[in-house]
């Protein structure tokens, strides 16, 4: 049974200039112990998708199930039982912690809300701090006294407090320096090995996602356009957008870069989510688009085992 199951999820925001369909019919599963990467650029809806799964934004249509239980419309009481299963880590490590609360209090908060007794809370916080590699005295200090990487560890400790099965990581390392990024990525991998958690790793940084994820989903304007194992996506991308994304990622290899320089980068800008293109959302920027792409929206279809793509022309 999949740990997380999402079916035809839609999230819409009414704005002054119309309705923005941030997530537009997304379906996927996450199995226990799996790391699924969700990549896309700004405005593709990946962060909104993560928050919708956490029931932090209202769901317009579709359903979300955790461990077989449909949580789409659960009230607050019922959600209390489900909350421990799915937790979240945020990008902005400073904004993710209450500046006026000590680190100990922030990490203990999920336990307090769940009604744990005090002495068990103290013990658990101490364990969590050592699991993420922070010193014991961090308990009485405030977030602004720590570096970005350390604050991210605090956020991870808080997310792990109730022993979740799935952790949604929303751009967890994007705001960190390169060397610190490696520390946090390795920490997440270690925790996965030790605790068996699954991750939904949301990021715009393809290199990091390729490194951590078992499977990858690519999003564009609120829809998933391709899925596959990390290796399939990297070695043999099918969707033109995925190919363009991969071509645009600068790699630390000057010789390879020079070879790539011959290929012009993807032109145009992301269309406004208020007025998405007809048919395939990518056709306005696609180098191989044909008439059918303008009229008919392609559906995400499986082309090979574990690989799906939403494109009329992809192999």
């Amino acid at each position, binding site marked *: 049974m999949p740990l997380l199951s999402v079916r035809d999820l839609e999230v819409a925001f009414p704005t002054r200039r119309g309705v923005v369909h941030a997530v537009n019919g997304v379906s996927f599963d996450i199995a226990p112990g799996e790391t699924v990467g969700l990549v896309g650029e700004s405005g593709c809806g990946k962060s909104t998708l993560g928050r919708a799964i956490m029931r932090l934004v209202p769901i317009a249509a579709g359903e979300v199930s955790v461990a077989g239980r449909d949580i789409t419309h659960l009230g607050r009481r019922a959600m209390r039982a489900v909350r421990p299963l799915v937790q979240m880590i945020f990008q902005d490590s400073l904004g993710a912690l209450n500046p006026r609360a000590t680190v100990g209090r922030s990490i203990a908060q999920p336990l307090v809300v769940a009604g744990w007794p005090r002495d068990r809370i103290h013990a658990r916080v101490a364990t969590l701090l050592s699991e993420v590699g922070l010193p014991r005295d961090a308990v009485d200090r405030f977030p602004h006294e720590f570096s970005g990487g350390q604050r991210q560890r605090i956020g991870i400790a808080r997310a792990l407090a109730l022993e979740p099965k799935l952790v949604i990581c929303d751009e967890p390392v994007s705001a960190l320096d390169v*060397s610190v990024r490696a520390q946090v990525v390795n920490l997440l991998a270690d925790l996965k090995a030790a605790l068996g958690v699954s991750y939904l790793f949301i990021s715009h940084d393809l*290199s990091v996602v390729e490194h951590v994820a078992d499977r990858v989903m690519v999003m564009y304007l609120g829809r998933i356009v391709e899925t596959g194992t990390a290796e399939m996506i990297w*070695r043999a991308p099918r969707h033109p957008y995925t190919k363009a994304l991969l*071509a645009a990622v*600068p790699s630390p290899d*000057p010789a390879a870069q020079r070879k790539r320089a011959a290929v012009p980068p993807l032109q145009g*800008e992301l269309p406004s989510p208020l007025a998405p293109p007809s048919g395939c959302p990518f056709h306005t920027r696609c180098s191989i688009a044909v008439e059918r792409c303008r009229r008919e929206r392609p559906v995400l279809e499986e082309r090979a085992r574990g690989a799906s793509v939403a494109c009329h022309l992809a192999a």
Partner: protein
Amino acid sequence: MAPALDVRALQISLFTRVGVLPAVDRVSFTVGAGETLALVGESGCGKSLTALALMRLLPDPPARIVGGEVRLDGEDLVRLDERTMQGMRTKRISMIFQDPAGSLNPVVSVGRQLVEVIEAHTDLGRRAAIDRALELLDLVRIADPRSRFGEFPHRLSGGMCQRVMIAMAIACGQRVLIADEPTTALDVTVQAQVLALLQRLQGEIGMAMLFITHDLGVVAQVAQRVAVMYAGRKVEEATVDALFAAPLHPYTRGLLAATPKAGEDRAARLTEIPGMVPPLGNLPTGCAFAPRCPVAGQRCWAERPALTEAAPGRLVACFAADAVPDRIASDAAVVGS
């Protein structure tokens, strides 16, 4: 040929309540016309302060240039009075920043901002300036420049704002462009467009570019030479090919190893650099990197390594780097020219 930009032993200090901190410690580098030098380092290494210093835009207090020279075509910018320096800015040396929307005046249309820059630094009249502005908008590949002319910055995407910034920066045909993390805040496909644009413009105009970034991938794409900074000091400099093929300084090696590369074996852990950058007020005696260095020896803790030329065009400040002369010779052969 004399370099367009010649920075010699630049020293910047931060005057804070806790004391005077050496934010940039005798950093030197040159950038020739038509060349791109990348300045790489992580937060707190002083690269942004260096960039601001070149434009004489350091926030004072707390930062101030306390030593060194910045020679633009032979003229030392550090010694100039503010009035003369204002004439230099944008006319001979200009800068683009990380946050494009924040760098533009939100209540003035982009066209007008561009025209203002042109009028301020050239002899062109209003009509001619407008024509030049439209020309520039076209040069930076903004589609339909006439209709975009009257738009306000908040209506434009991040990528377009950055293009407008670039247009403003090259408006007067200046010699040196300083780019401070210009694509960090942009999506990867937009980043690719902007980087391609910068390279094309550099080829056409022949300006020298100082490109500041923390992203080694971007470095590989745009730069011919690289200087690596750590805790306010330059620790390595080389051509791009040489640096990526055979990094000498343990910090550079650590950075490269910590960067995930496409196609790399996934099961492998990313190599971490343990610890953190030391606070400026508490720099270790000896090599600033010693506490985090995997090959630090006795000498490294006691003595600060000076920049030495390990091979022609390759500088490194490390005692351990001296121990690999053979590798360098063979790598130089591999890399060729």
